[in-house]
């Protein structure tokens, strides 16, 4: 594989990050592994003693795990929709950030469904979902949709990385032989011939087209698990688009945060520059405003209807003795903060946008929690002679430990993946300028273009 000077520059810059693991990376890996070990111990307790070790009971049957599941599937939209749309629109500035976006998608889609498994009481009957599927059940739709989505995300990431694998294969990286072998296998004989380029281009276009509706369907199906249940605060026709929008929104936030961290960590200021943060900030502003509109519309309708059970949930969300503070945080940090930060030129800076993204992502996690728990704490039948723990949900340390273990796994996979492939796609970079540049081989030998 021959590289133009832009590609060579990008490759040289990132070469050490994939050749050496580094002390910092080891420390982070150990830190994440420790969290995962704590989660493993919590999981052992949950399996040994049953779900009694969680805060979930007969009435509040969903809690932290389902909030995490929706959250992770939501952030997976970073690659699927943002990367897909920008690819179709052939937006040039997308190139340095698509790898991060696609990595977020694959890793988040791997971790999200694990929380479903943690929530299911009878894992020994899990295969029944495949052996005896009931097509009328939104749960079956969800299983099928997420499996299909995960497969698509992996294909999308792989397609976008084949050219880079070919570069790693030919660059004689100072990595163990097994890794060189893996690069060779994953490069599937790509040599950059026009015909091979065409195959990748066709596949990428097909994938970009299909991944967008697929991602929308996945999150709509997820929202229908709630929307098709006759419970206050859930049975809403706008839940589909509301969930999809919130997912793209949180995905954008996580992408901005990841960009900020990697830019700082690897000094990628020449590739991920202020322009990327500002453009993604604009996307975040528009999505934030739309999300705010949906939120207002949803709660206004419920409040105005004054239906008994809906009013009970609304009361819980607005009461500061119950979920009022969380609801306020979800809306201030999740809607107003990102809009104001991006709207004013003074704060429209990478650091501020990344900070707003952090708070927005946290707020959207809280929002998922607020969708699930207050509704389940408001059963349609009056509850009498019941212990408080059956009425009021409170997550136990086991649930928190597994939640943090999930987050640690996300970061760990990210660390490992960023050591296996470059964060900035080499092959995509500077493709347009190639014709006017001298071409070099990775080893540095200069040949005429």
């Amino acid at each position, binding site marked *: 594989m021959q590289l133009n000077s832009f590609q060579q520059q990008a490759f040289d810059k990132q070469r050490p990050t994939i050749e050496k693991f580094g002390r910092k990376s080891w420390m982070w890996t*150990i830190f994440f592994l*420790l*969290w995962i*070990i*704590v989660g493993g*111990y919590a999981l052992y*307790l949950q399996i040994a*003693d049953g779900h*009694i*070790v969680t*805060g979930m009971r007969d009435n509040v049957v969903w809690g932290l795990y389902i909030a995490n599941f929706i959250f992770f599937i939501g952030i997976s939209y970073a690659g699927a929709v943002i990367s897909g749309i920008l690819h179709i629109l052939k937006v040039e500035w997308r190139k340095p950030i698509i790898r991060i976006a696609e990595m977020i998608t694959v890793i988040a889609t791997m971790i999200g469904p694990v929380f479903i498994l943690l929530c299911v009481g009878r894992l020994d009957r899990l295969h029944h979902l495949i052996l005896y599927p*009931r*097509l*009328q059940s939104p749960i079956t739709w969800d299983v*099928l949709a997420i499996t*299909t989505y995960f*497969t*698509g995300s992996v*294909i999308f990431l792989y*397609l976008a990385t*084949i050219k880079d694998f070919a570069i790693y294969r030919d660059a004689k990286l100072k990595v163990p032989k097994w890794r060189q072998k893996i690069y060779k296998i994953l490069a*599937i*004989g*790509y*040599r950059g*011939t026009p*015909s*091979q380029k065409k*195959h*990748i281009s*066709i*596949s990428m276009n*097909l*994938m970009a*087209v*299909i991944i967008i509706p*697929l991602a929308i*369907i996945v999150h709509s199906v997820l929202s229908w698990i709630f929307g098709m249940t006759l419970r206050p605060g859930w049975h809403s026709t706008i839940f589909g688009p509301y969930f999809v929008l919130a997912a793209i929104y949180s995905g954008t936030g996580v992408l901005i945060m990841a960009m900020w961290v990697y830019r700082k960590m690897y000094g990628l200021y020449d590739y991920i520059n202020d322009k990327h943060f500002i453009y993604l900030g604009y996307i975040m502003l528009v999505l934030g405003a739309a999300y705010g509109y949906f939120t207002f519309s949803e709660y206004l309708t419920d409040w105005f209807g004054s239906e008994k059970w809906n009013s009970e949930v609304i009361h819980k969300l607005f009461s500061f003795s119950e979920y009022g503070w969380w609801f306020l945080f979800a809306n201030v940090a999740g809607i107003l903060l990102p809009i104001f930060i991006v709207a004013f030129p003074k704060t429209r800076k990478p650091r501020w946008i990344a900070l707003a993204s952090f708070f927005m992502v946290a707020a959207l996690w809280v929002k998922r929690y607020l969708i699930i728990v207050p509704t389940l704490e408001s059963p349609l039948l009056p509850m009498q002679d019941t212990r408080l*723990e059956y009425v009021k949900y*409170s*997550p*136990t*340390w*086991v649930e928190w430990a597994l939640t943090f273990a999930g987050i640690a796994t996300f970061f760990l996979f990210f660390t490992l993946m960023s050591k296996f492939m470059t964060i900035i796609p080499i092959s995509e970079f500077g493709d347009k300028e190639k014709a006017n540049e001298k071409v070099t081989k990775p080893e540095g030998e200069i040949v005429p273009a």
Partner: protein
Amino acid sequence: MRKTIQILTYSLLALMIATPGKLIAQTDSSAKPEVMEATTYTPLIEFLSVQKNDNSVDLKTSVKAKINGTLTKLAGLKIEFTIGADSTAKKLGETITDSRGVAIFSCKPEQLTTDKEGKLNFKASFAGKDSIESAEELISVKRARLEITPVKEDSLLTVKVKLIDLSTGTETAVPETDLGVFVKRLFSALKLGEGKTDEAGEASIEIPNNLPGDAKGNITLLAKLDENEVYGNLEAVVTQSWGIPVSDELKELPRALWSSHPPIWMLVTFIVLMTAVWGHYIVIIFELFRLRKEEPKTAS
């Protein structure tokens, strides 16, 4: 040396994080209950008899005990049934309580003996087991029988019920007693009407002519006298073909949201969507195979 210290430090750190475990739990709901001192429970036996029109008697007991403030049904207890006063008591048999704490014993007509007053004296007793104390319950009821006769006049369907006292050795009609007529349904009996016995000990109760029956149109009618102070509970059963025949053949359920087969539109939508997406994947994988095939030979 330095490496050993490093390994030890990391191991200690891992141990510190992993061990607090339950100590830092918000609510330690997983904790096993403390071992309590041996407590004994006093069972409560609810005991009743049902005299039937075939002269047999069903003896029913329901056993419960107050455990941790909650009335709990006790399963697996052996209940012994006897008949007669203490000195002449005769054992009828034993039954084990089921998961609902219920034990039923069916007493044949030849097992029944009455005292001088013509009364049946039954006793249900539990001998005690583990932490559950012994208990017993007695009932004394006069021997009686309910007779049920279905009468059809033109299109009018009536059930005649007669209450007869058998305690004196001769059959004596019992007047001024409230009775009920029921029809057996899938889970329990449905009340059709009530009546009061006349001087002849008889009551006539009209019943509807549009009751769903079995495949042959049979319905099971039931006359009941419940919790009478003198006679206890009495029942009489008769099966009559007065119902509307309802086919018991299994019909295939329509495709619906609630049935085992999904509606066609749902199946079609699912197949179209899945084919479209997975079709794309297959095309892409095919493209990748072609890409691999087109690798220049000199390069490899």
